[in-house]
């Protein structure tokens, strides 16, 4: 049912042109009989992208996004797997909810949905959720996060880090000291002072990262940091890695590209948690992604309906969409600047996130025997982001009107195209 494909003239990881063959959901060495042919001259093949951080909003906020719309947006953005964050309503803190989300993903069929389980019941930070039950469920949860909220209690965090070792899980920490960020609206710095918006200091993120690195080292667990946004966070992760601790980190496309001066418009499309930071932070994040200190790009795709964004700044919801622009933003921030080549993009957007999320069938080499999860990218086309044209149910992209490089032409999920000619297949 997945069909047979011949992808001609494609450049795997941006290398020399060749032909890839797909049959039975895998990459194969020879042209399968009856293969449909795709002229991929000039296109680059990457392993299907893996997002460690996606808000699909279902169940609970289907007005913002559903599993079906969110995963279609993901496929159009070149993703073959997304990790659906737990802050739904009801919260994904029991096996029933994660299985429901996983099943909705299977039914939609646009990409693999790996639910993230909540660390604590109701994201309340008081009591561990049934992490083992979620790990053992059909959804096979391996990443646990209270994203949106920080697991602030150090003892609870220690227990979570320890407990998930039993099933090779990882806690993905949303590093934000709650007291230092009460009512915080934007990065604390020159702009917050000028704009009269309550500041969100870098130290609120860095203090938690430092603490959790030490905790993870102490109990011999791995820990993952969601959306690191400051130069100081980068330094801490670099320090922890230099100690040989099992620490990983992700950065969002928007933190690689946008800065806090955009808030001067008071347009809440730029309101996000963690907040947009300074030029110096952007530079540090790019360098860290290039040298591998930051392991992965994760979108933190956070769709919101119009009425939650067309407001005064303080009343608006935090978050930006990102699935359909992620690869292009990374191309602009990292490839066009010479910081990463396409092999590097594949590593940071597919190979390493698949390892962190324990997804064996993703992020594989583009060679016979691998599962045919792959994406074809036109690196030379430039396009202008139009928020009205989106598969996501929401339009809150901060890149509206910007011209970006590179476009996803086709996405294959287990040998079956989910996107062809840049459109849903």
């Amino acid at each position, binding site marked *: 049912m997945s069909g047979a494909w011949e992808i001609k003239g494609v450049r795997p990881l941006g290398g020399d042109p060749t032909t890839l063959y797909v049959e039975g959901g895998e990459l194969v060495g020879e042209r399968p009989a009856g293969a449909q042919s795709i002229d991929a001259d000039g296109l680059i093949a990457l392993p299907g992208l893996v997002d460690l951080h996606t808000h699909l909003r279902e169940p609970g906020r289907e007005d913002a996004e559903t599993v079906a719309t969110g995963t279609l947006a993901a496929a159009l953005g070149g993703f073959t797997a997304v990790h659906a964050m737990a802050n739904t309503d009801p919260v994904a803190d029991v096996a029933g909810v994660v299985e429901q989300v996983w099943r909705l993903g299977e039914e939609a069929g646009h990409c693999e949905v790996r639910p993230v389980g909540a660390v604590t019941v109701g994201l309340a930070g008081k009591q561990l959720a049934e992490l083992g039950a979620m790990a053992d469920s059909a959804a096979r949860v391996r990443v646990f996060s209270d994203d949106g909220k920080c697991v602030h209690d150090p003892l609870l965090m220690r227990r979570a880090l320890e407990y998930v070792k039993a099933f090779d899980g990882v806690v993905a920490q949303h590093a934000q000291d709650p007291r230092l960020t009460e009512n915080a609206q934007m990065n604390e710095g020159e702009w917050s*002072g*000028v*704009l*009269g*918006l309550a500041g969100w200091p870098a130290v609120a993120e860095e203090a938690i990262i430092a603490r959790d690195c030490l905790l993870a080292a102490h109990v011999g667990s791995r820990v993952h940091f969601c959306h690191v946004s400051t130069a100081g966070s980068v330094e801490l992760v670099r320090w922890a890695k230099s100690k040989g601790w099992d620490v990983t980190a992700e950065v969002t496309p928007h933190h690689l590209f946008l800065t806090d001066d955009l808030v001067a418009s*008071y347009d809440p499309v730029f309101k996000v948690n963690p907040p947009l930071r300074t030029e110096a932070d952007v530079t540090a994040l790019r360098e860290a992604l290039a040298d591998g200190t930051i392991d992965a790009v994760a979108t933190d795709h956070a769709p919101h309906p119009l*009425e939650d964004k067309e*407001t005064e700044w*303080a009343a608006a919801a935090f978050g930006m969409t990102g699935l359909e622009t992620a690869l292009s933003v990374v191309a602009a921030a990292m490839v066009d600047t010479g910081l990463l080549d396409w092999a590097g993009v594949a590593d940071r957007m597919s190979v390493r996130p698949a390892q962190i999320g324990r997804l064996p069938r993703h992020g594989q080499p583009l060679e016979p025997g691998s599962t045919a999860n792959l994406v074809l990218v036109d690196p030379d086309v430039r396009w202008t982001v139009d928020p009205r044209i989106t598969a996501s149910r929401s339009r809150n992209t901060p890149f509206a009107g910007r011209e970006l490089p590179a476009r996803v032409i086709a996405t294959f999920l287990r040998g079956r195209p989910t996107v062809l000619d840049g459109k849903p297949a």
Partner: protein
Amino acid sequence: MNRHLLSAADLSRDDALLVLDTAAEMDVALAGRSIKKLPTLRGRTVVNLFFEDSTRTRTSFEVAAKRLSADVINFAAKGSSVSKGESLKDTALTLEAMGSDGVVIRHSASGAPHRLAHWIRGSVVNAGDGTHEHPTQALLDAYTIRRRTGRVEGLNIAIVGDVLHSRVARSNVLLLSTLGAEVTVVAPPTLLPVGVHSWPCAVSYDLDAVLPKSDAVMMLRVQHERMTGGFFPTVREYSRRYGLDAIRMASLPEDSIVMHPGPMNRGVEIAAEVADSVRSTIVEQVANGVSVRMAVLYLLLGGAMDGAAE
């Protein structure tokens, strides 16, 4: 000048001087007249859109608009607890449909006037937004300083108190520096924003060191919620270190003036005998507010509304 007055930063030096000069002409035009009314804005509609209670500012704008013969609608959108900003947009669209030419907005959220300006065609005047700005207050303060001392340029002006949360301080630092004054903000370090050193002003933690060279001292109100917010140990300690009492006032140069945007906490940031002294401009500030707001309304609404400004 821009179509809107959202921030004191919108005003160039020439713009600011034009507002002050126009306010002076407004004063002269109405001085000693029995009919305190000009026909200038006849047929224009000005909406006072106040999401926060502020009788003093709303009344000042209302009197200003009425003296220029504008129709005034007071839209008391009370509810700083409006959690969904949707209502701000809906309100904006309602005002638009009613044909308002100008909207004077007071809102608890910084930047709310900027959003409003995005949604409506008429002019928007920021009458105080959250902890951001209050540009007409700065204009009336500059006007008051100029009337008392004859100039703003070259004066040393101290702004004392909760700079972190003060829209009055932000607008005054911008405007007074644009007009050539040397501004110093004075506050405990907890009440200064991170990044204040990039502002066009000097920064001091020591009121006693600043007063002897200050031509004007602007005392900021200490909001009640700050008194318990851990920004300083006790109100008494704040008052002792940053309050202006008669003894401190005596260290001011002879012709210095003492200002306060009101409403005052007598005995906290300003002692009663200071507030009532001859140096105090507090009552004049209120009167000057009307003239300055007339000037702003005239300059924003008095000409063609299609942006065909010269």
